[in-house]
């Protein structure tokens, strides 16, 4: 092959590599597209399309934001939220993925456990919160658990769905190559379900911020969710929006990070 590689003209090589470069550029630019949202919001608010009392323009909340940054106040809240989210996320994702693999591969497990999970899933979190508080106390542990539950189901169903779509031939190859049950799990079902698992991880990332915001509404003295709630209670609208922007930025960067990881881990899929 290398014999003839030289024969492509300079221009052709440039043309050949151009799409990948253009793609990289576009992708980088696209990361900034959420700024459009802020612009839209600014304009709508300035033109009074939306009620400024409830939706102050970003330019108006920037001052509050800056002040919270310089006083370091915001960082404590971010730190608390990030800690809770990351612990809860991992606590939910790992069992979710593992059980998803089991349920995806084993029909009997699916038959017995599937309906049980289907019945547990819609149980309102707020209803089981008392139970969680009793078991895990009023501290961070119960917040981890609340997040973990939400994350768990997203990964359970996405992993299971992914595993069940594994082409039979891959399982046949594994069996013929002498794979143990465990090897089939981690070397066939897992990689084959990775694109779906990443869908689950992305959804779970967004959800954990939504859930933590709810969990921090009450029963917390720190965290961005607490901060949003406290601002709302006192109708401190611009502080509240600082909180909302911060939490959605955190979620956004988490989803972005997952995308980068996926690109590395799933190079055979389209992105």
């Amino acid at each position: 092959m290398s014999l003839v590689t030289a024969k492509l003209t300079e221009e052709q090589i440039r043309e050949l590599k151009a799409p990948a470069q253009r793609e990289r550029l576009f992708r980088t630019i696209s990361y900034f597209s959420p700024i459009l949202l802020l612009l839209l919001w600014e304009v709508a608010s300035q033109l009074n399309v939306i009620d400024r009392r409830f939706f102050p323009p970003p330019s108006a909340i920037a001052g509050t934001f800056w002040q919270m940054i310089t006083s370091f106040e915001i960082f404590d809240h971010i730190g608390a939220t990030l800690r809770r989210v990351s612990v809860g996320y991992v606590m939910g994702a790992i069992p979710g993925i593992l059980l998803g693999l089991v349920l995806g591969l084993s029909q009997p497990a699916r038959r017995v456990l599937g309906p049980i999970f289907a019945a547990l899933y819609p149980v309102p979190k707020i209803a089981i919160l008392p139970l969680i508080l009793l078991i895990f106390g009023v501290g961070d542990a119960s917040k981890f658990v609340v997040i973990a539950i939400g994350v768990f189901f997203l990964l359970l169903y996405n992993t299971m769905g992914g595993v069940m779509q594994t082409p039979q031939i891959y399982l046949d190859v594994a069996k013929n190559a002498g794979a143990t049950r465990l090897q089939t799990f981690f070397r066939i079902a897992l990689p084959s379900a990775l694109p779906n698992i990443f869908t689950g991880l992305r959804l779970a990332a967004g959800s954990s911020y939504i859930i933590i915001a709810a969990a921090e509404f009450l029963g917390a003295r720190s965290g961005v969710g607490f901060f949003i709630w406290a601002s709302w209670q006192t109708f401190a609208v611009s502080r509240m929006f600082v909180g909302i922007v911060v939490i959605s930025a955190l979620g956004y960067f988490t989803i972005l990070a997952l995308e980068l990881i996926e690109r590395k881990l799933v190079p055979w899929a389209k992105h």
Partner: protein
Amino acid sequence: AEDKPKIEFLYSPFADYAPFFLAEDLGYFDEYGVDVTLSPKSGTAETIQMLASGNVQAGAATWGAGLFNSINAGATVAIVATSAKMPNTVPSPSPFMVSQAAWDAGIRTVQDLKGKRVGIPGPGGFGMYSVAKALEKGGLTVDDVEAIYLPPPATAAAFANGGLEAGWSIEPFALQLEREGLGRRLVEDHTFGTELGFIAFNKEFVESHEDAVVNFLAAYLKAARQLDNGGWKDERVLEIVARYTGTEKSLLQGIAYTIRSEDGSIDLNSVREQEAFFRKRGDLEYKGDVDINSVYRSDLLKRANELVAKK
């Protein structure tokens, strides 16, 4: 005789709980030799549940159908003191408000609200009681209006888009509604002296650690008196409360606050009145009066008062 037991105390991030914030941050708990951690919590039902199960030793919560029902269900708690009550003065910390739009449309009195939409934070609690009391001023009951369950933040939106004509509110939210031109105070003298909340402990804990409870109460009383005697003007106090409630200091200034009886005792008449109210509404799961005396340990409060007086 007893060593220093740990007390985990459940609070909500509202200014009503300020005495506990002060007692903790100004070192009064240390001064009286109690080891207290403050933990944030949500509603009354959870608080009672955590206390009754013994997972947590102490907490403050508000009166209401939930509390009455849980005592009746055999919750093993001991109530030891008041934590907040409404003052006998205006402005009220929890005014009944009318939306600016409704005001402009000519609603000026409580009577005008007949058949209109009124916001209430929820059934079975102080908000419901307070709204009923306000409506009573115009000879109405809750059944004469369209009750809509909405907490304060949502009330603002509902005032703005005409979803509500009137509703319950609480400071500093009420002040903000006024400032933004969304609503105005309609009734402020409807809940004079109403008992709002109480301090409770796990029953077994109280029985085995009486001294610790007394010390806790002493520290609380000290902080409470400081607050109720002009403490809100103190910059340091505002700072502490701002931190616990996540509210800006500037907002905490110039609003009315709930108070406490000087000696921390509970006005049982007010409590009985609330119980009667909820019974009438059918929110109670039992017949007859709940046996509050069996759970109210006023003797400890007495010792605490003596202890404070000694110092």
